[in-house]
């Protein structure tokens, strides 16, 4: 009785989640009439706009990751070490991007950093790229911060720091040589998640008018029939890849205990 119910719930889940995946895969292969082919994929990969926007988004993602790590790791470390009383508040702030819709945040950017403001970031393509990167870092903040903070919890920050200091290490050395390697898995998890978020992000890029992958997909979706399905498969593959890498690095950590 109980088992039937459990299998029922699971079956529903499997059905609901596989149908769209089957649907998009099936559709993406049907560009040629009457036969399955990779035509849609060939078209997508051959499209120079695809290559441009994809490269753009990958670059953005990489910069976002670097910026995010540089921002979050020292902060989370410092708060654990010196300002533990502040943790709940910082945690609250880092969770805000889950509550405030991205479209509201980017709307604020547009109005706050327009050409006539004190910091006219949207005035130039370069400035807008930077702004978009900050926006992505904001979106990724909840995930990055949580990942790093959880990673820091498993090591004894205070003892490691004192040990390093007694050997004459400065703050940069401590962070780069002691703390970072110890939370590397957490940082990598945060990084892959950031990558997955940034690569297909639509709202911010579209409203800031940047040639990113998300808006490209949307544009293609509005004008074509089969290519969007191929894009969906590709995007799903990328997401799967990122999450798979997270699993991989965490498993690696389990088998190889962190060096102290």
């Amino acid at each position, binding site marked *: 009785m109980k088992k039937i119910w459990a299998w029922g719930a699971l079956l529903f*889940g499997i059905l609901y989640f596989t*149908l769209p995946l089957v649907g998009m895969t099936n559709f993406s292969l049907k560009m040629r009439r009457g036969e399955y082919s990779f035509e849609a994929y060939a078209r997508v990969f051959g499209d120079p706009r695809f290559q441009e926007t994809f490269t753009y988004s990958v670059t953005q993602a990489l910069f976002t990751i670097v910026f995010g790590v540089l921002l979050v790791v020292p902060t989370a470390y410092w708060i654990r070490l010196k300002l533990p009383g502040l943790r709940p*508040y910082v945690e609250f*702030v880092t969770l805000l991007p889950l509550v405030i819709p991205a*479209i509201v*945040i980017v709307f*604020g950017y547009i109005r*706050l950093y327009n050409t006539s403001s004190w910091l006219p970031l949207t005035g130039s393509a370069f400035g807008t790229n930077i702004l978009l990167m*900050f926006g992505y870092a904001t979106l990724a903040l909840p995930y990055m911060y949580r990942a790093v903070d959880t990673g820091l919890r498993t090591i004894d920050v205070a003892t490691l720091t004192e040990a390093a200091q007694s050997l004459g290490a400065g703050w940069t050395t401590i962070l780069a040589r002691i703390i970072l390697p110890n939370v590397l898995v957490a940082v990598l998890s945060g990084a892959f998640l950031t990558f997955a978020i940034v690569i297909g992000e639509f709202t911010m890029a579209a409203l800031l008018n940047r040639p990113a992958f998300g808006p490209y997909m949307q544009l293609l*979706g509005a004008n074509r029939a089969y290519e969007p399905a191929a894009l969906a498969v590709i995007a799903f593959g990328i997401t799967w890849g990122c999450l798979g890498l997270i699993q991989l690095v965490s498993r690696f950590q389990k088998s190889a205990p962190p060096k102290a």
Partner: protein
Amino acid sequence: MSTAHISARSPARRLPLHWLGILPFAAFVTLFLILPTMKIVVGAFQTPDGSFTLDNIRGLFTPSILAAYWISIKISVASALLGCLAGFAISAAVVFGGLPKGIRGPLLTFSGVASNFAGVPLAFAFLATLGPVGIVNVFLRSELGIDLRALGFNILSFWGLTITYLFFQIPLMILIITPALDGLKREWREAASILGATGFQYWRMVAFPILLPSILGTLALLFANAFGAVATAIALTGSSLSIVPILLFAQIRGDVLGNPHLGYALAFGMIVVTGVANAIYIWLRARSERWLK
């Protein structure tokens, strides 16, 4: 806002040097999270020349804008509730249902992927599935002679959007609730049972109250998640379905409402709605969690 007044009050008590360490973070958050949000909030109460007004807010109370909010809230509530329900059922099936142990790992991995598979590609996937020429429609029409469209189903609708959103809502619920279900100790169930409780009494009096904070938190998160979802909606419906995020998107792009400051009010309304949802959550949580403080 509570964070602002905390950071304004405490520095005197500690060495200022300590505070330098979080300066970059504080600056970043202020510039790219707090200030932009404040800008919207303030702008909602300003005329174009900067003086205070309630006209923008009043401007929201037109039938079309109210309808947009209403359908947005309905979709968000429905997809959050259904997501919670389905996610809970699947998670409970795996944790307690006596299913093979091997299912659990893949389920969690898949949930991680699916909860992040949102936005434009998700819309494409559902168009290819439930759209007019999607796999389900085609199958039902050719094999069973059922025409979903004739029956009134349209993917560009309340239900269409809700079903699509569930694709990331359910996995999110699974990811959050599975650890919570794991946290239910076997001894609690056994203690309840040996004290004479039925399975239902155990769930009503012990398990559910213990899970409630997690469930409420997830509900609030799922609600905000759906309420702010722009990409999926736009890629799925173009602009044929008037929900708030789509309206705001169009307004930011081209001032379709014919009043720039009405955009502020629209965005402010979104903050208010998600804010209220979270306030309700925090209030309920405080009530249900006296035993955890």
